[in-house]
Structures are given as C-alpha cells and as structure tokens.
C-alpha cells in the first residue's frame, strides 16, 4: 500500500491529490478484499459471518485517515469498517487470518471476523453488543488524560441502528461531561439489518442529537470522499484542540445485505436510486480522473496490484493452520493461580 504522508500535518490537505489517492486506495483494498471474502464465504471457506462495508468505504476511511495511530490515537471500528481499519494501520493479513480461522490471527481464532482488534495498537476489538464499545474508547481517552498524554483523539464508528442503544446514550453523555476528544462517526446507511430508519429514530437527521449532549455535530454526504475527508479532518482537529466530542453523521446506503447471507430484498429501488445510493468508490474514481490526479490506467494498475495483494494474503492465511484445542490454555483469567481447574468442563474433574 502507498502510505502517503497524509498524517504529517495536523490538518491534512484534504484536496491534495496524494491524500485523496491514498484514501481511495484503502477503499479499493477494502472493497476488493471484502469481495474476495464474500466469495470465499459462498464457497464455505469462511468461519462465521461476513459483513461488508460496501458503499461505506469513503466515510469509514475518512475517520481513520484523520487519526494517527503513531501518536496514540485510538480507533473503535465496527462491522463495516474494513476500509477504516486498513487506513488506521491494520495489516491485511490480520483481516485475512481472522476470516479464515488461522490461529496466527490477532484473535487466535478465539474470536472472529469483525471482532478483531489490537488493544496495544489502539484498535478496539469490538464485542457484538452494539454501542458498548463507545465508552471503551472514551475510557482510553480518560486513561491517556491521566497519563498526561495530550493532543490525542479517539474515533469510534457505529451505524444508525446502534444509536438506539442505551450504551450509545450513556457513552455520548459521559464523553460530553468529560469533554473528551472523541469523534463519533455514525454511518446512517438507512437500515439496521432490515429495519428502515423510520422504525429506528424520529428526528430529521441523527446529527440533531448533538445539541442535546452539548457537543458539536457535523452531517455529511457519506458517498463523497472529498466531503468525508474534509469533515473528519475538521471534526478531528476540533476534538484535538479541546472542543470536546464531535458527532459526525454520514448519509449513505448499505450497498449489500446486512451480511452475506442476506439478499436485502427489502431495500427499495427508490432508495438505491436515491441521493445516497451511489457507490462512493465510483464517485471517488471519477473525481480522481476528473481532477487529473489519476488516470483510469493508473487506477486499473492499482486494482490489479491490490487484487494480487489480496490473493496473497488470502492464500497465506488459508495455508496456516487453525487452532489446536489441545494447545489451548482454556483459561479466562490472567491470574493463573486463581484459575480453577474447570478445564474438563466440571470443577476438579
């Protein structure tokens, strides 16, 4: 991957070609990787479910590129943030290993697919319960404040549906009280599984929630990479500068099923043709060409490079072995002396 020097300045030049290019390439990588994963899923080669970020790559990458892992920023992705994960610094092989059940993966096959993370590197390994990772990201920011670390930002991702959870509310309110440098990215993709937005919330735009928490809000067309980069750059800069939590709501459409098992027949043609139904990758590709930052040939070239890269990662992960139950410690405690001999599934047996 081209690791363009996009994170140097505090405020990246959003409309610079190299920044946009880098963002686009992460999007492309995510898309191609996920498509590969989906086809492996259909072939029965993937453990667990596959949840794609199709249509959400611009918004996802927007937040992640505004964060800087090396300075200590924290990132809490959710199920549709393959693009953001890669942009934040995840190695593709880690993703491949997790989907393909390799024991070399970051979760050692104990947990799977979208639940992967790397705590030490600032990437939160989400649990499934929606909304519950937000306060975890906040806690890291609180911890960093105790440690005297300054100018840090935490970014956290969720969908429209997750805004209905009590955990979302408690965490946002807490972050507002503590005036934490937290950027909350809500990808409003118009559906939570099959449930349309009108059955999920009743405000006009989820960004309307910001005022009720006393935090700043931003609403953006999530299909437009330029706007996403710009909005997250701004929101992140505001958070870093001490203006407290920033709620960023992206408007877009999930261009796939909830998971690969779902044909999403419930998404109407009207929505697909609607304002936010366009594919952010196509939009970005066109923008790259129109602005003269790339040519279609160059993009073709990247595409085949990326396909190659994905193929390699996938093959590598597939060749690795799965976990060996007999090598497992089967121990849930760090404190070994307090771990009981419940190994046979029954105390002391």
């Amino acid at each position: 991957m081209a690791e363009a020097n996009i994170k140097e300045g505090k405020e990246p030049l959003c409309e610079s070609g190299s920044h946009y290019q880098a963002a686009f390439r992460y999007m492309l990588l995510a898309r191609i990787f996920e498509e590969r994963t989906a086809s492996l899923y259909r072939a029965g080669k993937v453990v667990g479910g596959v949840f794609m970020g199709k249509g959400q790559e611009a918004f996802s990458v927007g937040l992640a590129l505004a964060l800087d892992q090396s300075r200590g920023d924290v990132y809490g992705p959710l199920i549709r943030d393959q693009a953001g994960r890669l942009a934040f610094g995840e190695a593709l092989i880690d993703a491949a290993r997790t989907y393909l059940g390799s024991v070399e993966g970051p979760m050692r096959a104990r947990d799977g697919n979208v639940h992967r993370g790397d705590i030490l590197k600032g990437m939160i390994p989400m649990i499934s319960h929606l909304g519950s990772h937000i306060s975890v990201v906040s806690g890291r920011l609180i911890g960093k404040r105790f440690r005297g670390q300054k100018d840090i930002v935490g970014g956290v991702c969720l969908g429209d549906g997750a805004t209905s959870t009590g955990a979302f509310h408690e965490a946002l309110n807490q972050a507002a009280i503590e005036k934490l440098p937290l950027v909350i990215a809500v990808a409003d993709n118009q559906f939570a599984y099959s449930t349309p937005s009108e059955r999920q919330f009743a405000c006009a735009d989820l960004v309307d929630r910001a005022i009720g928490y006393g935090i700043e809000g931003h609403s953006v067309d999530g299909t437009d990479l330029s706007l996403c980069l710009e909005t997250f750059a701004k929101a992140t800069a505001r958070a870093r500068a001490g203006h407290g939590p920033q709620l960023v709501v992206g408007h877009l459409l999930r261009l796939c099923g909830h998971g690969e098992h779902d044909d999403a027949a419930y998404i109407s043609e009207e929505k697909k043709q609607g304002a936010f139904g366009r594919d952010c990758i196509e939009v970005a590709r066109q923008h790259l060409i129109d602005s003269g930052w790339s040519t279609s040939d160059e993009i073709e070239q990247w595409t085949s490079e990326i396909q190659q890269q994905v193929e390699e990662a996938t093959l590598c992960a597939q060749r690795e072995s799965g976990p060996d139950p007999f090598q497992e410690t089967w121990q849930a405690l760090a404190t070994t002396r307090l771990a009981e001999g419940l190994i046979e599934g029954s105390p002391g047996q």
Partner: protein
Amino acid sequence: MSITYLEAIQAAQDRALGEDDSVYIYGQDVGSFGGAFKATKNLAAKYPGRVIDAPISEDAMVGSAVGATAEGMRPVLEMQFADFSTIAINQICNQAATQFWRTGIPCPITVRLPSGGTEGGGPFHSQSMEAIYAQYPGLIVLTPATVEDAYSMLLEAIAIDDPVVFCEHKYLYYHLKADQLPDQNLPVGKARIARAGKHATVVTYSAMVHEALRAADELAEEGWDIEIVDLRSVKPIDTDTILASVARTGRLLCVSEAFPWGGVNAEVISRVTSEGFHLLDAPPKRLNAKDTPIPFHPDLWKTHRPASQSIAASLRDLLRY
C-alpha cells in the same frame, strides 16, 4: 409433512396470534423481514400491525411489554440472540419478574432467546443464559429440546400468566425435524424421559439431550442402558421425575452447555443429593462447557462444549465407579 424446530416456533406464534388478539410480537427485524432466523416469517403480513419491528433497544422492548400487559396484552419478544438480553436483563429480572409479587398483578410476557452455540457463533452469539434467569424469583425458564416441545411449550409460555424466558436452541433450528406438530403434550413443569435405561441417569436439556442420546447409543453397544431425562423446564425443575430416575439407576450425570460454575447442573445435583442421597450408588457427576468465553473457531467450539464423546467418556467413568 416435515417440520423443523424453527418452523414449530413460527407455527406456535402463528397460532397464538390467530387465537388470541391480545398477543403481539415485538423484536428487531421480526416484521416483514420475518426475523433474523425467520421465526416470524409471514406473520407480519398475516397479522397486520401485530408483528412489530423494534429499534435496537432491548431495555425499552421489555419495559414496554411489561406496560402492555397491564392493558391485557400478552407480548412475545424476540431477542435477536440470547446474548443481547443482557441489555434487557434489568427489565426482565427487576421489572417483569418482581411485578406479581410486589403488586398482585400478573405480568404475562414471553421473551424468546435464541440460545446456545453453533459453528462460528463466537463469544457473543452462542450463550446459554437459562441459569442466569433461573436465579431470579418470578420467572419461568423453558428449554425445549424437541420440535414438539418447541411448539407446545411456546404456546403454553404465551398462555402462562407469568414472565417466561423461552430458551430456544439455535443449533436445533434446522437440524431437528418432526413429522407433525403435537395436539397434546406434557405440560410445562414436567420433565420427560427421553430414553429409558437402568444403569445411569443423564439429566440434561435443550441441544444436549441429543448429544446425550448419541452417547447413550454408543454405550448401548457396550452393553449399558442409559436413561435420559430431558428437563424441558429448568425453572421450575421437575425434581420428582429426576429422583425417580435416579432411584432406578443409582447413578447421575448432569449435562449442560452453559458455563461450569453453578447453573442447572449444580442445582440438579444439589436437589438429588439433598433429597435422594441414599439413591446414589456413585458420586454424581456433571459436564458443562469450559470456563472461558465460547470460542469462535469450530475446532475450539467443539471442544469447549460437551458433546456425545465427552458425555460417553463421563458416563464410562461414572459406570466404572
């Protein structure tokens, strides 16, 4: 005709909606989509306005259901996975479960929990939470192991005037089939002898009944006759049926897919040893899942939960005593 465990659950809800207009269904994606597992397939169209999509708000789902019962409604709630019921646990255990005792007004809600492990389910889509709920006074906790029970017990759950936590096992959804739905069945509260035997008793429930049956088949080839008690309901527990079985066999193994500390196995062993100590010819044994989160990878998962092989091994130990 052949009907799956999952279809039986759909059919029970269909019948309940059809027979009693105070019944309604509320849960994420249960409406026109028919639910994450299709347990409410076609019901929204058949019963307009009575099968309702909920926001991702398990606490409010249950709280509102409790309120609706005061107007004579009998809500059936679907948690998308049992594991997510932790978000509603306060409303289930402190709001719904205490109401009758506090006020004398019954609270007939049914909370369906798609429970238990499947391949690749992982730590948060595989839990067996029956023993968490059974600890709280005021709840009835059901764990059907057969297509027939899934059907008749869900119907009964909806009819019961108390809050019922209905733990249906996802592994059985498609794996289990029956020829037809029962007209009559054992009532809630009664355990069932799933297999008669004389050398040892296995007390179990839900998906583990089938693992135990397989283990019994294996042991039958070795000349052992294993009796299997399917609890059906873990609160209340049908202690009489268990004691009668142990009286016949003199040996007890309890099997549960839940985590090992406490839970149904410990409760059953405590009852048997308190009330039927002299019936036992050997120390009681139990087999649970391991004391770690439920692993994602199938190879780990298969080792984590009890299965026919480990049940058979435990039985051999028990019989050797």
